[in-house]
């Protein structure tokens, strides 16, 4: 699950370390500079000795790491509601692909290999991408399901109505030129065409992700998706 900055800031807050820690690589570079320099001054040598002693001190190893927390209990409730809603939507997508047995889904032999949930625009938008093996075609099916209204759906509707308009226009023009009426023939062709496209539009919309390999979660090692997501959220 990846969050953009606006979504993260909506629910989470960073806990910064109380003590500022020097960058160990910068210290290392300054030590190397002095060790390689035959003409290093006494001050530089003293500073290097201080750095070396600092790293020899075992207490220095006890450092605080930057972490994050949920802002308050109200946000926690909202987040859990969001998780439940998203899980239901994921379930719907997987069922549409014929994956309705949870144990088979998590099995090593399952065709469902990776999934990734991307949350952005202050938790208003979520997209679910998945990689599924396709042994029949010796390939990998890459799916993206957006859990929000997409521009792709709207533009597709526009395309449908524009095409319909031009088809009707063509029919009308042929009538004006005194040719035999093709309206009945055309309508016979157009209506099934509209119906098929309408059916396609109302079905869940899938599109191909060309480069969704990176940072996906390996599901093979994961038991149920629900518990996995919830566990991750509790970890956060």
């Amino acid at each position, binding site marked *: 699950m990846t969050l953009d900055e606006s979504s993260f800031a909506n629910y989470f807050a960073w806990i910064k370390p109380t003590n500022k820690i020097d960058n*160990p690589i910068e210290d*290392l570079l300054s*030590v190397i500079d002095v060790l*390689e320099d035959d003409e290093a001054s006494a001050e530089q040598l003293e500073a290097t000795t201080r750095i070396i002693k600092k*790293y020899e001190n075992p207490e220095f190893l006890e450092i605080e790491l930057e972490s994050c927390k949920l802002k308050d209990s109200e946000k926690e409730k909202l987040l859990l509601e969001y998780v439940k809603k998203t899980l239901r939507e994921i379930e719907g997508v997987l069922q549409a692909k014929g994956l309705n047995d949870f144990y088979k889904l998590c099995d090593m032999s399952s065709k469902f290999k990776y999934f990734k949930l991307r949350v952005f625009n202050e938790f208003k938008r979520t997209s679910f991408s998945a990689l599924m093996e396709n042994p029949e*075609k010796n390939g990998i099916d890459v799916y993206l399901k957006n859990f929000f209204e997409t521009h792709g759906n709207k533009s597709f509707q526009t395309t449908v109505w524009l095409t319909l308009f031009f088809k009707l226009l063509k029919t009308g023009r042929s009538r004006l030129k005194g040719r035999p009426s093709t309206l009945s023939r055309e309508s016979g062709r157009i209506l099934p065409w509209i119906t098929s496209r309408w059916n396609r539009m109302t079905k869940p919309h899938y599109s*191909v992700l060309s480069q969704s390999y990176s940072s996906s979660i390996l599901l093979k090692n994961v038991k149920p998706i629900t518990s996995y997501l919830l566990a991750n959220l509790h970890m956060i």
Partner: protein
Amino acid sequence: MVLSQEFIKVKLLFLLTFFIDDLGQNYKYPVTSVLVGVNGYALGVKTYIYDLEQCTEKGVFFYVDSHLWKKKEGAAEKKLKKNVVTLPMLEKYNFENVLTRKGFEVIDRHLVYEQTSNRVDLHGVNSLRTVAQTELLENMLNVQNFVNYYRETQDLDL
């Protein structure tokens, strides 16, 4: 929709070889260390030995906490010759400054090899009293390991 494997484009991995060594007696086994990154973003250092019999690579991957390696803004930059294409992974990060200045040698001292007269195997890297195949690069390239290296190789009194 189906997208067959041959049409899936994966971003090209950027490999920069810095260090090559030959081990072995009767047969030489090349050991190579490379800095690996994608689109100027550093991923880590890969050290591997090439198995001449199996024609395979076997080795260790050192992953990095890349923000530690980023150069400070406004740091003095080298003057480059004309027609030289700069590499973001070298320009924006301090890897080159550390790895080419005995960094690879320090890593090499922590690797665990098994050598016979005909064969060399790279088992991994010493990590927390075990031999591991992956390790954090900062655990290898730290002040203590560098100081130990200089103490042993150059007899420095530190």
